[in-house]
């Protein structure tokens, strides 16, 4: 379970998160929507400790992410994250990209790591691309590789930060299909997205962020069809 309690975060003078409260249960899919600069991506990086927070608390299965005593490297093995820019390791083949962390972080044997990597890459439809270097693949393929790379660590939670925003519209579908598949397999996910149709389909709950505040959170039908907050209405009207 991910528990976010009254989290505040500033970049210099600008407060980007103004007291966020959110609990995500095991197996739940929560999508976060909202305009640029609403703080949604920042929240994800605070959840796995890539960004420090000013106040509040993030607890993952009872571990305080931002406590000094927390071993973040260990915690991050539990929480996978995929970014807007897929960030392939350009000097490694697709297979090596996925094998690296299981080998070096989890200390797996080469054989075991390869087995897992092949399995995950096949799972996201890249079984044919194992020995290819990332720059020879499309953005959608690289993004799916990044997903496989995170999954190879067998995380219990996955965070997706606008994973389709930097993609050619033609390639968005294949990546969303991968996310749908994960959701249907019961992965606990927090997805920041601009894909409203996708959010409506896969989410158990949808959160709308506005200027650092979680203005509204509800089941997708409720949030999309009968939004309560004025800003949510405005945002949805603008994106339709």
């Amino acid at each position: 379970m991910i528990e976010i309690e009254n989290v505040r975060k500033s970049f210099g003078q600008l407060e980007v998160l103004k007291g966020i409260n959110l609990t995500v249960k095991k197996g739940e899919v929560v999508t976060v929507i909202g305009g640029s600069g609403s703080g949604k991506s920042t929240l994800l990086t605070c959840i796995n400790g890539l960004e420090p927070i000013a106040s509040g608390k993030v607890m993952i299965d009872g571990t305080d992410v931002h406590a000094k005593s927390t071993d973040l490297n260990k915690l991050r093995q539990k929480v996978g994250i995929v970014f807007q820019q897929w960030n392939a390791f350009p000097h490694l083949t697709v297979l090596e990209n996925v094998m690296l962390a299981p080998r070096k972080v989890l200390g797996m044997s080469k054989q075991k790591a390869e087995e897992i990597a092949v399995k995950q890459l096949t799972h996201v439809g890249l079984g044919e691309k194992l020995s290819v270097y990332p720059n020879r693949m499309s953005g959608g393929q690289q993004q799916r590789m990044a997903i496989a790379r995170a999954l190879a660590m067998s995380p219990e939670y996955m965070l997706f930060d606008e994973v389709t925003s930097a993609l050619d519209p033609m390639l968005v579908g294949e990546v969303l299909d991968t996310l749908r598949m994960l959701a249907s397999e019961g992965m606990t996910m927090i997805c920041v997205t601009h894909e409203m149709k996708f959010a409506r389909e896969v989410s158990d709950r949808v959160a709308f962020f506005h200027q650092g505040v979680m203005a509204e959170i509800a089941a997708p039908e409720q949030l999309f069809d009968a939004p309560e907050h004025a800003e949510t209405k405005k945002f949805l009207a603008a994106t339709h």
Partner: protein
Amino acid sequence: MFNTALSWSDLVFLAHGAGMTLAVTAVSVAAGTVLGVLFGVIRFQLGPYWAAPLTFVLDVFRSVPLLIQLVLGNALQSIMKLGWPPFTTSCVVLSLYTAAYCTEIVRGGIDSVPTTTRRAARSLGMSWFQDMRYIVAPLAIRVSLPSWIGLTLGVMKDSALVLWLGLIELLRASQILVTRLQEPLFILLICGAIYFIISLPIARLGGYLEKRWSPND
């Protein structure tokens, strides 16, 4: 029509000089690179503000002519009664000189690795060191290699200045022969050719590694 007093033993004498040039260069580049990597990582980690004292010292080594550094270094070691032979003094000064340049090359190389790529590595649970070892180092080396090769070739030529401390390296050996045989053009031509021959493999190595790595990028 072509007559020279240069004998085989003179050529052997030049080869010994070239050996000294190679030895001084190898020791200085090796030690300078190790120090440069260390200082480069420190500079990158500390940021410009906290690394300012280190940057200042390295700037001194980069801006003061090497000849002055060698003479001052030699005077300093004798004032401090270290009793270093000229070879040691030469290598110490040249190593620091190399390290000063290498630091910037390393820092630039680390800088060239996108923060987002490093963030992805850390998000997979890799420690700072693992990120450095498996992601940053291979990528930074590719970027830094051409400059590092240039630095090595530069140090090889600059190492001629150690003749001021009494070491008989390639250039000094040539000078001795010129004084004795009075055939400056011919001997300097040979000397230049030897410099070229010992530099070539290093320059080629750079080209080879770049080519080998390029299909992956």
